[in-house]
């Protein structure tokens, strides 16, 4: 169960090998989390993340394999993850994501479809099943990792940005439908984070490490914030960016 500080005991991570999710999981295990289910596509990567969770205090770690390019199997993966948890799940983190390469992908229907599947179709399908299970539990939290890229779609990563925008808006509507159920939805909107996802890209302003993101997440959980910005100042930065005329927006964003 979650305690008065929102610290969970049983946690499911969808995208358990994600660098951001691992940083969050380490912090959770150092507090009250003892039972972790890691779901992902690479057993080896999940095992490494599992060992790390144990180093930080988890006593039980299980793994579930899935491929986010098959959204039709998402519900089954959720069922397997909850069965592996064996107890009511206090927190589910959805960290699955794919950045893609816009200029290579944009003439490739298959790659474009993959971006939509991994970043949008799989997560929202999973969310529908999560809603069913968690509302029946009567409690729990879902953390969806969106991105500041969802706030205003950029020419240089519109496949990614548009899919994240869809997920972000979906999650926002989803959160409103949870009132009174005991289940909470929280949306994390990070700026650039130094992880394997952006390895090789030029570092943008307000880039943070995954541990800082995890700190903002801990704070956001304790405060029940529906939207968690990381770092928090991006809330204001993107408020301005969002309202720039298109020519200015492109002048700023196409270069980074």
């Amino acid at each position, binding site marked *: *169960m*979650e*305690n*008065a*500080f*929102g*610290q969970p*005991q049983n946690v499911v991570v969808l995208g358990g090998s994600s660098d951001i999710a691992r940083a969050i999981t380490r912090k959770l295990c150092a*507090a*009250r989390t*003892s039972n972790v289910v890691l779901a992902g596509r690479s057993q080896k990567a999940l095992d490494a993340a599992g060992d790390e969770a144990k180093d930080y205090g988890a006593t039980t770690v299980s793994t579930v394999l899935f491929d986010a390019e098959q959204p039709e199997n998402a519900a089954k993966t959720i069922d397997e993850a909850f069965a592996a948890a064996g*107890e*009511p799940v206090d927190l589910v983190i959805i960290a699955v994501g794919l950045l893609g390469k816009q200029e290579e992908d944009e003439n490739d229907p298959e790659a474009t479809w993959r971006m939509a599947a991994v970043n949008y179709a799989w997560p929202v399908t999973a969310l529908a099943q999560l809603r069913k299970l968690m*509302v*029946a*539990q*009567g*409690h729990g939290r879902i953390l969806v990792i969106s991105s500041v890229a969802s706030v205003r779609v950029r020419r240089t990563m519109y496949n990614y940005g548009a899919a994240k925008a869809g997920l972000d808006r979906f999650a926002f509507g989803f959160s409103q439908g949870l009132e*009174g*159920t*005991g*289940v909470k939805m929280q949306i994390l909107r990070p700026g650039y984070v130094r992880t394997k996802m952006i390895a090789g890209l030029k570092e943008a302003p307000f880039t943070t490490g995954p541990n800082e993101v995890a700190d903002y997440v*801990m*704070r956001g959980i*304790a*405060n*029940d914030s529906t939207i968690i910005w990381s770092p928090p100042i991006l809330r204001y930065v993107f408020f301005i960016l969002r309202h720039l005329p298109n020519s200015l927006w492109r002048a700023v964003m196409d270069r980074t």
Partner: protein
Amino acid sequence: MSRELLYGWGLTAPGNCELRTVYDEAQVLDQLSKTTHTIARGLGRSYGDPAQVSGGVVLNNRGLCEIGRISDEGVVTVGAGASIDELLQLSIPLGWFVPVTAGTRQITIGGAIAADVHGKNHHVDGSFANHVLSMRLVTPTGAHTISPNSQPELFWGTVGAMGLTGVITEATIQMTPITTDSVLVDTDRYSNLEGVMTAMFEGDANYRYSVAWVDCMTKGKNMGRAILTRGDHAGVDQVTKPTLVGPQPPKISVPFMPPSGLLNRASVRLFNEAWFRVAPQHREKEVQSLSTFFHPLDGVSNWNRMYGKRGFLQYQFAVSDDHSETVVNAIKRLSESGVASFLAVLKRFGAGNASPLSFPIPGWTLALDLPIGSPRLPGILDELDDMVVAAGGRLYFAKDSRLSPEKAQVMYPRLGEFRTLKNRIDPEHKLTSDLARRLRLVGE
């Protein structure tokens, strides 16, 4: 029958449960046969999550509210859902007071037994269950009349077990005779913790009721400054106009939730300061009403809303006299950390009883309310837990909302004994709560 969000007095960690009011034993039996996860609930005055089970069925005991005739010897049979307030309305005019009361009258008899509550008289009279002659308990395996003589294991196993052995439907209680509705109170102010602890250690035995309010925010030489109030029921010849009038309903209510953060370091410090300024250095035999002395907070209903939507928690621990330094160290740690805390309640405990899970152990108990919000608070309280564990002490389940299961096992070494009983009378573990899940009280 409805699904709703339930939480404790601290307004934290809500769970969506199906709430069903039960009116008699047959209904309780029926519910227990039909459901897989269920727990009883009284007036929800526990701070954390013991009276809820997310996704399960919560049996509201308020339908079990009958209060029987009080015998000439002061023995009364009361429905488990009747509140101490309702009992006092009837009993005070007849010259009877409850043997033990919490700091609020708004708790049920079921809740009082399930938590085995203690009052300001623990050092003399022990906890609530010490005055329960018998009770009726409905478990998934049947209904039982249990008393310390007839079924000691089930009786004491139910006391302090936070509803996990079954649903209490009624209890027969020995009341305390009174001749007036007044208390004669002595008040003393101390400029530091050592002073008040010495006075309590040496002098509490002379009073039936005793409690000290301690300031946990002042550092240095005034660390732990305190106001000690002690008293006894007044006799007819000790007050000018003796009366026997029951408690009055609250006059003020907190109508809405102010933003979290209203009760912060500055505002709480100001309140504590005012409290000390108002208290006399020394005053003897002041006549106070039962309500003023025992239930000062009941004058304002819903005062918990003052903490805002993030809510608050109460940290209460007990340690033996051999470890009184833990009280000092805990207050030192709190005052140095600067977290906002209203005056803490310091009390002496007398002997414990036979229950494996009852909280009181002889020595000291300290309780303080803390708003949720400071990011350092979880870590500070984990440190305090370690201090309490090292001293062989324990936390109170009725107040807890954040302890870890590992430390709960150490604090309650007789948990294994309770689990053996649990497996016998509730083999499918139908009775469970969010507290039981969080602290893994019922085992695998």
